[in-house]
């Protein structure tokens, strides 16, 4: 792995880490509940991007399945929380 790619991976990972910190600030500040749900959804996506980048870093295919699971559970949790805020219960 050349210095260009490892440097780019380091840069991208630090970008994602900063993005996670900023999103977590929104998660703690968020004036309303829907802001927090949106921030949590964004956190899930950033975790997915970090997992895929680590897959390139370690040249392993295992990270792909982890990222797929993160995407699935992120969708389910955001939908469930939005439904709960909308209706007051998840399964009617």
């Amino acid at each position: 792995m050349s210095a260009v790619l490892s440097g780019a991976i380091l840069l991208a990972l630090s970008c994602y880490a900063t993005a996670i910190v900023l999103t977590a600030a929104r998660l703690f500040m968020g004036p309303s509940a829907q802001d927090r749900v949106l921030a949590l959804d964004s956190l899930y996506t950033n975790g997915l991007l970090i997992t895929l980048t680590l897959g390139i870093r370690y040249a392993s295919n295992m990270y792909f399945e982890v990222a797929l699971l993160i995407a699935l559970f992120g969708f389910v949790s955001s939908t469930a929380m939005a439904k709960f805020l909308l209706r007051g219960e998840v399964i009617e």
Partner: protein
Amino acid sequence: MNPSAVSFWIETLVAVLLVFSGAFALVGAVGLLRMRSFFLRLHASALTNTIGAWGVTLASIVYFSVLEARLAIHVWAIIILLALTVPIATVLIARTALFRQRRQAGNDVPSPLGGNRPSSL
């Protein structure tokens, strides 16, 4: 399957895609923190979900295709999954925000379409 088998230009392409994706994810997070109202923040989080995910996925496809000397298209499943699920989640969260903000008087949100429909739709 040794990582030194990947040529320099392919690695540069992967690096450019990764940096592109990281920059847009950072811009999306800054927007999520700094935008004024909830409906503006909804736009910022879409950056991470579209351009950020596309950049990393294309980088993975290029890198693993060259590394394993076959077309490693399976990472595309993440893009397909995100393209199917992210609009649904976004619309649900936006509807939740509309519903909750309409119940508070004095908020500048659009009124529901049609006179007799319940405001929760």
